[in-house]
């Protein structure tokens, strides 16, 4: 006989470390930011709580509002080349852990460090679109630039936001980022690490996109944001005449 799950917080409300989210055996946490202490589920981070009803039990998770980017295999990130080793590059991916891009993940042929230089392919200061191949916290994340849409960035602007705001910039099933692209005609690539690549036909549109992204970052925890950002873009566009 298990006790019925008791959810002790309003769904979609802001929770803080130490807040008791729920009590009971048939509530399962689905976030690393929830701790089970006895029968209680306790939040360990500032975020928005999401409650799902799975029929016979309930699932609770937290969307963090703050926090560093922790790489996960499969993530698309935008990195900045920081250092060149003998057969690898060290890449800053706006995370506590630095990315490692080995030469095998860049070139299709064997690489001879005696006759060839890595500098020819990627230099310090280059931005790249990369994918996280492996990361287990024991070693630094491995990156690759083999794949469609990956590689060195040669044009566009990079906007940096807090990694915790990325889900909001993307929106539910990409609704926010699709709206941004449709309203401005720019192409936007959102890296999971909080760096965003914006390519626009002209400078004015680029500014509008950057301001919109900054607005989303500042108001990430509010509701009805997509429509407000749409109105913001239209207003800015008519004001600038683009």
């Amino acid at each position, binding site marked *: 006989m298990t006790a019925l799950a008791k959810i002790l917080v309003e769904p979609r409300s802001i929770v803080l470390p130490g*807040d008791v989210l729920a009590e009971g055996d048939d509530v399962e946490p689905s976030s690393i*930011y929830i701790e089970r202490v006895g029968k209680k589920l306790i939040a360990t*981070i500032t975020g928005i709580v999401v409650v799902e009803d799975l029929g016979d039990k309930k699932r609770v998770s937290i969307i963090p509002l703050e926090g560093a980017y922790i790489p996960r295999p499969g993530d698309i990130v935008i990195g900045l080349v920081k250092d060149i080793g003998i057969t690898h590059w060290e890449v800053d991916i706006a995370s506590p852990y630095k990315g490692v891009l080995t030469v095998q993940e860049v070139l299709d042929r064997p690489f001879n460090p005696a006759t060839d230089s890595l500098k020819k392919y990627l230099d310090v200061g280059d931005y790249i679109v990369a994918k996280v191949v492996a990361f287990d916290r024991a070693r630094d994340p491995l990156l690759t630039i083999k794949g469609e849409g990956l590689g060195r960035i040669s044009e566009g602007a990079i906007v940096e936001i807090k990694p915790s705001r990325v889900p909001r910039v993307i929106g539910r099933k990409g609704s926010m980022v699709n709206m941004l692209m449709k309203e401005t005609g720019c192409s936007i690539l959102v890296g999971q690490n909080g760096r965003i690549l914006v390519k626009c036909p002209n400078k004015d549109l680029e500014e509008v996109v950057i301001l919109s992204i900054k607005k989303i970052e500042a108001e990430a925890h509010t509701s009805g944001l997509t429509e407000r950002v749409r109105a913001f873009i239209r207003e800015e566009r008519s004001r600038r005449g683009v």
Partner: protein
Amino acid sequence: MGGAAGEKPQLIHWEERDGEKIPVRHDGRLPDQLRPVRMEVGVLSNADGSALVEYGGTRVIAAVYGPREAVPRHIALPDRAVLRCRYHMAPFSTAERKTPAPTRREVELSKVIREALESVVITELFPRTTIDIYMEVLQSDGGTRTAAITAASLALADAGVAMRDLVAGVAVGKVDGVVVLDIDEIEDNYAEADMPVAIAPSIGKVVLLQLNGVLTRDEFREGMELARKGIETLYKLQKEALRRKYVEVKG
């Protein structure tokens, strides 16, 4: 803490209220009253998380950086994050200039504050990184270490570092034979005892407990009870301060 200098002033006055004799402190507070408290989160833009906390005349700012790459690399631990704490008093924080170099007292307080925070921060989530916490006392009027812990815990929450609970601290003391909450500088200087306490209320853990001076067992229990109630109040103010950050943007 500074010893008594000169003649000891009268710090407790016994007043008659509703036919009862009640101890009133030099600033008009009752034994179980906190000083006016102010908390603000997100006061520094360069830090990942920050907070300003005031207990009366005591004013402490805390900044958190991290989790970030451990520098120098050899201090990193393979299974968890390293917590680094610096408690420091600004040269202008006291009536007489304090030398800016860390004193023995500051080194000790940095250590006990670090240990207090280590018991709530979930360091296993961020192996091989460091979390740096800087606490700067801008103005000192007693209870700076407890204000520093309260500020540090707010700054950690603001930075998005995973914690089992927020921590709040307050000092209790025995002044003129009366056990009082949140003692200030003057009371501390002439107190028979001074006991800083920090508690993580939701998980019911005492994370810092120091005692300077002498208390009987009963006085100790009374002091702990006062501290617990005071921390309960501070804890609510901490949560309000954190929520306020998100409500303000909305409006």
